[in-house]
């Protein structure tokens, strides 16, 4: 589903990722970890084509991401749900509309949108905040909305960047079980985090990023 072959990425001449190769199979749930500034977010950006690789090849859901034309990028992104580290919620839209937007882009019918959004709001236990604007939510609540928006369109790939950075342990556990659920429905999930507690004892594959390369691969 996600396949990196010899991928490199430089920023201003400094390598952030160098000759990275790995494969995430369809239906897998895997983690990327490593200290702050190691390149976890950069790696995810390469997958959804917000950055272009300086070398190597990236195949995501059959698309050769590095060679994608500008006009084709939206169609790749419709297959990829993203939990952004910096949230990117729209402050002039209610919680409901923020999530619904992802479906509008998919050209879904209004009635269907309503049903789907309400369901996902129940899943993240924020149905009562439906008509609230995001700036009136706590950091943790916002984080859950971002997760909801990423998964509501049932993408084939789900990328999550530090999805529990603003959550206490209880809520974190809750969110992680949500990810497992989505994964069970067939979505490939890739989670970037520095929080070892998230993958300890899960039995999932963990890629350890360190100083521009994948240092080791282990089972969490």
């Amino acid at each position, binding site marked *: 589903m996600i396949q990196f072959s010899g991928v490199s990425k430089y920023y201003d001449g400094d390598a952030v990722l160098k000759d990275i190769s790995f494969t995430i199979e369809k239906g897998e749930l895997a983690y990327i970890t490593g200290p702050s500034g190691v390149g976890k977010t950069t790696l995810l950006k390469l997958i959804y084509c917000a950055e272009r690789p300086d070398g190597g090849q990236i195949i995501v859901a059959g698309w050769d991401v590095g060679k994608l034309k*500008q006009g084709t990028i*939206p169609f790749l*992104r419709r297959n990829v749900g993203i939990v952004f580290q910096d949230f990117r919620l729209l402050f002039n839209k209610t919680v409901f509309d923020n999530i619904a937007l992802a479906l509008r882009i998919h050209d879904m019918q209004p009635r269907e949108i309503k049903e789907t959004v309400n369901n996902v709001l129940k899943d993240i236990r924020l149905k009562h905040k439906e008509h609230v604007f995001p700036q009136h939510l706590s950091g943790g609540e916002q984080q859950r909305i971002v997760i909801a928006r990423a998964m509501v369109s049932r993408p084939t790939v789900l990328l999550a960047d530090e999805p529990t950075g603003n959550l206490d342990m209880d809520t974190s556990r809750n969110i992680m079980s949500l990810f497992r659920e989505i994964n069970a429905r067939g979505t490939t999930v890739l989670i970037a985090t520095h929080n070892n507690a998230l993958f300890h004892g899960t039995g999932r594959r963990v890629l350890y990023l360190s100083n521009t390369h994948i240092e080791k691969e282990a089972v969490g």
Partner: protein
Amino acid sequence: MRTLIYALQTAMKSIWHEKWINLLTVLSVGIGLLILSSFATVTLNVDSALKRWAKGFGMVVYLDGDLTGKAENELKRLFLQDPDIIGVKYISKEQAVRELRRTLGENASILDELDENPLPSSFELKLKRELLKPDVVKKKAEQISRLKGVEEVQYGEKWLSSLNTLSTILKTGAVFLGCAILVAIVFITYNTIKIFFYRRKDEIETLKLLGATRTFIRLPFLIEGLFIGIAGGLISAVALFGIHSMISFKGADILPAIRALMVAPPMRAYMAIVIAGAAMSLTGSFIAVGRIRY
């Protein structure tokens, strides 16, 4: 299709939400178009008035007092053959006196005291419109004045050159003003749409990341720009019509001829204003939205 509906909804919401700034933009665009179209109308009117005058422009060829009827006919034949001359009118001594009498009005009685008619007979020549350039006319006049039996050639030298200069000034002014206002209108819409664009900049960045196509992102802004242009165009068309009616109504009191002289902008011109407004605003919006890069 659903994209269009959604874009329309978004545009409508934005138009309503930002009604004041939209209203001011529409008014500014309307004022710009009004000034532009008023100036165009004035130029059109002046130009058509000039053309009329030019049409009436004639050379008066005064004949020697002692010319025989035959010689006069000879001259007339000559003028009629000349391809540059499109109208030849003979004015006899008697007609000349009658005209003078009319000019004198009340004081015409002095003419009664005359024993003999002191006025010469003359030809009034009309030149082809194309030739009404000061220097061409001058050459023609000199040429005619050298003919046998011609005493003098008179024509409104000063006026002719004035009319030409005035017409040129007005047309140059219209083109300059037109360009300036065109740029201003495009810019005003650009500015307003850019504001909306910046207000939604974060939103647009996010939309891009969520997989929205360029059309999905751009369409609401273009619709809003189109709306502004059409509304501005309509306002200025209505205002132009109002001003034109008022002037031809009020003006008729001052100068009854004004009604006959004034050229009303045709229906097509009003449509053109609206279309021009729409086109300018759309252009401004297009530039404001800019290239969308993922």
